[in-house]
């Protein structure tokens, strides 16, 4: 209620229509997004579908204790965070870079063709992408063949047998699949930049780099900030499928994410409660992260979420 100062009858009258729609949409949000959160009760129960939410046995924080006393879970958090942060940084950087460079392309036709091609891998499922990746990185795959050809290595590297390669491979796969798609949003943002700013910069004698730095980047900065803030909240959702498909026993120390852990120890064991507990943990961390970074953004006068 920090807004109370501006809260007066004139405003209400004036904003009647806004208030009406805001109320309608909020009711929608409560029904479809907040009502299912009763399900969080499961985390404090020994939930059985048979007894349902209302009659399952309450066990308090038992499931949380179980999670946090398990060393595996702690390691899984580390993996998820690490991959989340690496992926976020790399895919973010690549999408912005790609959008800017694409925008700098002189040929309009080329621009369209490149962009059309760039987003296509988004439509391939992870199972296809990881299949191709496995091929490319196998002992006789293109990467090993190239490395051997240039004499960098004498023996083929078994990329999937070493823990140190796993995170970079996952990051690369994400970039490969999503760069073009992620760039769409920046390309849309670039369209909102006033061309006269470029002209003015040219007149001031700015070169290409100066224009990118002083016009393009500031122009898409609000979009970058908003996406960054949103995605910071998602670092714990580093994924499931790709790690599941690329992982194996030898690298499971670094490959397992929270979602894989939950599937292994929760759902596939018929234990919904532990999955819900992990979900609540992720939600809490996400919300803390965005509140924190939102505060920082506010302090620096940047675009923010709320």
């Amino acid at each position, binding site marked *: 209620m920090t807004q109370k100062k501006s809260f007066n009858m004139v405003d209400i009258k004036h904003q009647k*229509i806004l208030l*009406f*729609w805001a109320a*309608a949409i909020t009711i*929608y949000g409560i029904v479809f997004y907040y009502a299912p959160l009763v399900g969080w009760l499961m985390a404090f129960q020994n939930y*059985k*579908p*048979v007894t*349902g939410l209302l009659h399952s046995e309450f066990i308090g924080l038992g499931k949380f204790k179980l999670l946090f006393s398990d060393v*595996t879970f702690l390691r899984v958090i580390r993996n998820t965070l690490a991959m989340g942060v690496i992926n976020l940084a790399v895919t973010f950087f690549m999408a912005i870079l790609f959008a800017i460079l694409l925008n700098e392309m002189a040929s309009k036709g080329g621009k369209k063709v490149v962009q059309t091609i760039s987003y296509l891998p988004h439509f391939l499922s992870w199972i296809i992408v*990881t*299949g191709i990746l*496995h*091929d490319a990185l*196998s*002992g006789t795959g293109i990467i090993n063949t190239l490395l051997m050809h240039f004499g960098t290595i004498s023996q083929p590297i*078994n*990329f*999937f*047998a070493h823990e140190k390669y796993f995170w970079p491979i996952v990051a690369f796969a994400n970039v490969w699949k999503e760069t073009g798609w992620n760039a769409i949003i920046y390309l849309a943002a670039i369209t909102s930049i006033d061309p006269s700013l470029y002209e003015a910069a040219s007149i001031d004698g700015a070169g290409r780099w100066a224009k990118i730095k002083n016009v393009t980047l500031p122009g898409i900065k609000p979009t970058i900030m908003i996406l960054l803030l949103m995605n910071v909240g998602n670092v714990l959702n580093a994924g499931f499928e790709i790690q599941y*498909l690329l992982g*194996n*026993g*030898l690298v*499971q*120390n670094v490959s397992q994410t929270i979602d894989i852990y939950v*599937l*292994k*120890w929760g*759902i*596939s*064991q*018929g*234990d*919904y409660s532990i999955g819900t507990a992990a979900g609540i943990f992720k939600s809490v961390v996400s919300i803390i992260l965005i509140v924190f970074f939102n505060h920082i953004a506010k302090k620096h006068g940047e675009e923010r979420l709320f």
Partner: protein
Amino acid sequence: MKKKIVSAVLCAAMLSSMFAGCGKTAGSGGAVNKDGIKEFTAFFAVPGSEINDDNEIQQIIAEKTGCKVKETWLTGQTAEEAVGTLIAGGEYPDFVEAGSGSVQMYEAGALVALDDYIDKYPNIKEYFTEQEWDALRQSDGHIYWIPQFSNIYGEERACTHNDEAFWIQARVLEWAGYPKIETMDEYFDLIESYNKENPTMDDGTENIPYTILCDDWRYFCLENAPEFLDGYPNDGSVIVDPDTMKIVDYNTTPTAKKYFQKLNEEYKKGIVDPESFTQTYDEYIAKLSSGRVLGMIDQWWDFAYTAEDAIKSAGLDEKGCQYVPLPITIEKGMKNQWHNSGGVLNVSSGLAITTSCQDVEGALQFVNDLLDQDIHDLRFWGVKDVDYKVGDDGMYYRTPEMRKQQADTAYKASHVCSYSYFPQYSGTSRDGKNAMKSDGQEQEFFDGLSEPIKKCFEAYGAQTYVEMLGTSEAPGPWYPMYTYSSTMTTSTPGGTAWAKMGEIKHQYLPKVVMSEDFEKGWNEYMGVYEECKPEDFISEMQTELERRVEEAAKYEGGSKKK
């Protein structure tokens, strides 16, 4: 004014669509359609192929029995999730096979007790013995589901060894003059010497002497060989010592250590494929399909329908690149139990009828009808003269065109309807000659074999894959123990230990095989393995074993009636 209209319209659209389509409830209960056919619904918590609505054999069966079942299968979910939402929703299809969620369905009171009905349906009654029916009773003393598989009618007809074995390419055996191979050492010696003489295929690609599939749950190809090497059957998660009636952990036996030590040696020699532990199932199948892999451990069904088919289609079968199983044990002269006769009664799940079904009798009548010989033939052989022919001697056979047609996905969807998750028989048909299912028909089997395999069988005096290994009597009444371990959850200490053991084995067994210093690697593995408290698991398995044996003892002394 205009803005009000706009917002009113939008708002109305929003609300109306919000409440539109309060649909009908999930279809249930043998409603009669316009052709006078009762329609049931079924959900199977396993992946499977859906057949077309206008499927021909389904239509024929519907005309004969007056019933039709619309089947749906698991897609993109685990069985537990699917069953969980079913229970939460409280509406069920008429038939259900809940897989590992069966007990949940029972506990939710979603299933109809079948024991009062069974006597009325002769085919269903005949399907199991009293003892078997009793084994299906749940804690409240009632029977809720009927396991569908591995029920043998008449004489057993097994041509392929469907289960696990050490496999080797026919060309390797031919090169060595079909020697007798009984132990792991002999097996690897043979592979080594063959590979030394013939390091490449005809086209120059290098052979892969031995590979191990290790992808996810398929790591049984690495993990469970010790139970077989010691001459025990596939109890899956443990060994049962039939003399002392004690559960033995096969992960820690001296045989297990010897087996992994051998793999370690072979790994260092370059015989074991260095990509073994990182390859995916697809890559493994690709390697097998290329004909480069000389040998491996696997279950037949895990590679036969993919790699063996690819080998055939590439013409590599004539070069002896198909696989035959070998009866290998850890020492010479031991009895092996890679193949056991008799069906496996998996009591943990089966076909059930739900409380949403409004015509339980009609549903059971349909199950009964499906076991009639003529309907069973339609399910597993097809339509006479379209899918099979009958010889003068009354034997069913297929022409090569028919065989090809049977493998066509589109044909299967539009024509074939086996109601594959309803009760069914294997073994010999009621006519006493034919096999219940086409894959048990010996002549059919032989016609499909390639020359090198026939030659190999001849050399060993065998006629089928099964005879390559020899058959053992069905193990005791407890068998198989995996039907219990697969239902364990982390809610018990034993289940937790079982899950942890799996994790540790996934991680450490590859390391052990790849380790520079085997002893050190093995000791490290044993150290972390012990931390999982395998004794908790073993003791729960022991309790179950005793329960099963006790249960079976009630029927001893001639009470076995059929």
